[in-house]
């Protein structure tokens, strides 16, 4: 029997290859070039990212490696999100790590590898690719979380993330195994075909259990309610640029895989998982918002806010119609801008070793640095979902999707949650503007990189907020 050569059109994974090559090159350069100055590594990695950005084959629908990956608009849109997220993180990390004194060159390749992992998750049409992408991303993130070896908090964050990450991968894999057992294939298209074909498969409890276990695995990754416990500790402990990266990139990747796998592989189990997501969404939003109300540490507060935002995205996912899914994609893009922008300002305000991450330490920031405080306010208003910002448009589309599908009560709970979330976002502004400054904030130095990042973030929040046509159309075009 002759060996049928699988058609491996590399065009499908062109951006990933570019990034991987650049990352490996950086690793070598880092070893060869002596000297403390690591900034050039940053610029090179940015160049790599831009290269990857231009190599995305828009509009085409190329499935590579015998249906292991599928490069379509959906994954292209998410790839843009990942590249943006990585780029912004790199911009803000140079100043931070120099200040913290752990300026190791390996940071940039790790970020690039994590981005590659995310891209694979976005284009995976096979459970194996999903698993691989997930693991590449997670492993890179475990190291990044514990990057600041000297700081015990960073160590603890890395270790906690590792243990719980591995634990959740176990469940994910066990789910994949059961699905494979029930349907005989790991290709999501085939799974759907098998399930539709024979009702035996469809109501085989193993099939349902597999789907549920996979759901828990993914929920861990996007920090949905019962599986969110790790998020606050890891976000607080990890170095701030990495927290920014973790809060935006991997969450989007988790959603990409979650959406693609569930929408394509399990249409038959739609009622079950839609109801599960309904419950998860309510739990996630409520837990995230309520605990965030009484948080003093701003990083921990943003951690719980990111849980809440995962909940809002889940609302869109529960209503798996066009408006819901495009809402998720638009929302995750703008969420990247808002969150990384906010973390950029936290980096600026933070001193070495981050002693002053409490909200109270922001007293009088509005008086001392009006422009920076204004940017922070824009990010916070966008997180809260107040109209002129993109956050509002995103939330509008998510909840509109839910209302269209008839989940009125879900939308109402979502809306009440975002009203509650307004309180802790306003609380930051209260300290910034309405309290008299105790300190001079003179240690806040604006490096050109951070300024660029903040500018891009502000543009990313306001422009889609006021004229969201282009981005929204792109999102609606690229449904899975």
């Amino acid at each position, binding site marked *: 029997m002759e060996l049928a050569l699988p058609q491996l059109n590399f065009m499908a994974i062109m951006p990933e290859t570019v990034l991987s090559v650049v990352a490996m090159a950086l690793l070598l350069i880092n070893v060869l070039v002596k000297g403390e100055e690591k900034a050039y590594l940053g610029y090179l990695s940015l160049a790599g990212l831009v290269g990857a950005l231009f190599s995305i084959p828009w509009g085409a629908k190329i499935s590579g490696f015998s249906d292991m990956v599928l490069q379509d608009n959906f994954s292209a849109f998410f790839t843009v999100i990942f590249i943006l997220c990585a780029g912004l993180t790199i911009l803000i990390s140079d100043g931070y790590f120099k200040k913290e004194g752990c300026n190791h060159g390996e940071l940039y390749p790790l970020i690039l590898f994590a981005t590659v992992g995310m891209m694979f998750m976005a284009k995976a049409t096979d459970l194996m690719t999903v698993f691989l992408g997930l693991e590449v991303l997670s492993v890179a993130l475990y190291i990044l979380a514990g990057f600041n070896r000297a700081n015990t908090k960073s160590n603890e964050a890395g270790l*906690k993330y590792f243990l719980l990450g591995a*634990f959740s991968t176990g469940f994910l894999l066990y789910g994949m195994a059961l699905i494979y057992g029930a349907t005989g294939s790991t290709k999501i298209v085939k799974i759907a075909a098998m399930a539709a074909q024979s009702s035996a498969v469809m109501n085989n409890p193993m099939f349902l259990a597999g789907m*549920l276990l996979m759901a*828990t695995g993914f929920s861990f990754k996007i920090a949905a309610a*019962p599986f969110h*416990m790790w998020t606050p500790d890891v976000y607080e402990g990890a170095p701030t640029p990495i927290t920014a990266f973790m809060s935006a990139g991997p969450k989007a990747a988790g959603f990409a895989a979650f959406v693609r796998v569930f929408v394509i592989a399990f249409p038959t189990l739609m009622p079950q998982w839609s109801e599960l997501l309904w419950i998860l969404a309510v739990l996630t939003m409520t837990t995230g918002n*309520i*605990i965030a109300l009484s948080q003093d540490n701003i990083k921990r507060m943003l951690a719980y806010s990111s849980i809440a935002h995962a909940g809002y995205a889940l609302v869109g996912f529960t209503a798996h119609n066009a408006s819901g899914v495009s809402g998720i994609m638009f929302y995750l893009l703008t969420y990247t801008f808002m969150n990384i922008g906010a973390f950029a300002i936290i980096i600026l305000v933070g001193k070495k070793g981050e002693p002053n991450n409490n909200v109270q330490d922001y007293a009088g920031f509005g008086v001392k640095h009006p422009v920076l405080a204004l940017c922070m306010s824009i990010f916070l208003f966008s997180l809260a979902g107040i109209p002129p910002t993109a956050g509002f448009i995103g939330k509008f589309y998510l909840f509109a999707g839910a209302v269209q599908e008839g989940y009125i009560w879900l939308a109402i709970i979502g809306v009440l949650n975002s009203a509650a979330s307004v309180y802790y976002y306003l609380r930051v502004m209260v300290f910034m503007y309405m309290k008299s400054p105790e300190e001079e904030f003179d240690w806040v130095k604006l490096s050109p990189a951070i300024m660029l990042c903040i500018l891009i973030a502000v543009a990313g929040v306001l422009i889609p907020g006021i004229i969201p046509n282009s981005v929204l159309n792109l999102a609606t075009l690229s449904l899975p």
Partner: protein
Amino acid sequence: MFDNVWLIPLLPLIGFLVNGLFGKKIKNEAVIGGIGTLAIFGSFLVSCGILIQMIGTSPEHRVFEKVIFPWIHSGNFKADMAFLVDPLSVVMIMVVTGVGSLIHLYSIGYMHGEEGFYRFFAYLNLFCMSMLLLVLGNNLLVMFIGWEGVGLCSYLLIGYYFHKKSAGDAAKKAFVMNRVGDFGFLVGLFTLYWWLGSNQNIWTINFMELKQASHLLPYGGVVTVATLCFFVGATGKSAQIPLFTWLPDAMEGPTPVSALIHAATMVTAGVYMIGRMSFIFIKSPDTMMVIAVVGAATAIFAATIGTAQNDIKRVLAYSTVSQLGFMFLAMGTGAFAAGIFHLMTHAFFKACLFLGSGSVIHAMHYALHHAHSHDDAQDMRNMGGLRKAMPITFITFLVSTIAIAGIPGFSGFFSKDEILWQAFSNPYHGGLNMILWGIGAVAACFTAFYMFRLVFMTFYGDCRIQPKAKSHLHESPLVITIPLMVLGFLAAVGGYIGLPKLIGELFGGIPNYFELWLDPVFELAQEYGHTYAQVGGHHNVALEWGLMGGSVVIALVGITIAFTMYIKNTELPGKFTSTFPALHRAVYNKWYIDELYDFLFVNPCKAFGNFLWKGFDVLVVDGIVNGVAAVVKGWSGAFRYTATGYVHNYAFVMAAGTMAILGYYIFR
């Protein structure tokens, strides 16, 4: 002359604007006083012109309307700023502008040296403008502008001495009480407008249109409701039983104010309103009875309080309330012309009495001021024997007192006797007439008693003024005494234009010109009245003579009692008060009405307000709002402790979560 009727209210308005805006700069009292007086005197001349022109025209078409500009037009509701001139309004504008001009002249002298001189004349002119609007308005809304305008001006003028807290309180009390009346007026207006509109599809509040449509109104029913509400408005404005306590306190204002507003013009607004809408009021017998009863009750009630007051202006205030009671009694018994006639005569002699008392107070202030003593210049107990010191004031005061007491030959007798006779002989209230006449007669007796008590205490007897001050007592300047003389003359002569028919025949058939003059206005009302009047009102002449004689006797009885108690043996009043201490104290404290109102309305409102604010608003509503926030914060605090920091706890929660999901779905 009819065309420029709009000049009448406009001139005082101009006077108000000039004095109000530039008064502070002019500073010269004569100029300010001059502007004020000329403004009102101008309107008086225009009114005379209109009166003469109206006398010239035949009675049928003595009605003239002039629209100035469209005020509120919304949907089917139309209200224009427009004036109506007919015999009733001519009488009123003559009274208002005539007495008004005299009082303006008087106040130039009286207010001499006051610090806010220009402010006083500005408000006085504003008051005249509002009163003229009220009287000339051709629809209910313009009348309401005047109605509230006079309320505003009485607030401003009573509170003229604003540094005195009592003046401020009195002003506020007056305005609030008027406002209660206005509330009644508004509700009445709405009921009438709504009922006529929705049932007969006539959407109007114009008097003439209402008159044409009045035949569609039923007897009683919605008309009773509307007219009762209007009557509440009237009681508020003309200080009748429920809402009269503000008038005595209004004496805090300067005396010309009391004379103009609280004697001659504003308080008569209620009577005018009933007169103007007589064709509606007459259509509900119950309201007419209520008006008559309330009128009579107020007359007797206020008269009793008047007897025990020591402040000269308070006695006159209560006498005004009592005389108004007579007017309402007349209106209630359908004798509209008699009511308006008494209104006119009362304006003359009451204004004269007030101005006379003002001149007395003025002189007392001057004297006590020089003697550097601080006893009250208005308290009759430290006056006495002033007739020699102030002859003109004394004579005019005496003439007016005789008029008000109802001594034949003077104006008071003709108008009051006419009211008593109509009360006795009107066909509407059957058996009640006797009681009404009786109350009226007793009230007339009381009136005679306390008026002459006042005269004897101030002008006769030994002089109780401070010995040092006695030498400084002298007559008020001419500018004060001229209005007194004119008013005194009018008080004496005013009655003859409305001679009752009975006396008219005696002197060769002189008709009752006043009634003839007002006939076209009230004949529609009489016509409606006859439809339900009991037949056979007894009109025999002998009875009328007997009653007239009776009322004269009553007046004389009152005077003699006053004479014996205050001239012959002056300790009689002391003996009387000691034998009935409780009665005296009750009467002196105005039957504790003010305390009753405070107890019933003012304090409960304040307490309820406090309860609502502290109790409901802060505790309940804010409690709920902050409560929800606290609950959410509580939950947040509680949930926060779930993040224990231990990896195994987190792992446990994850495992539990997975088990729960699996269990829920697999075994469902």
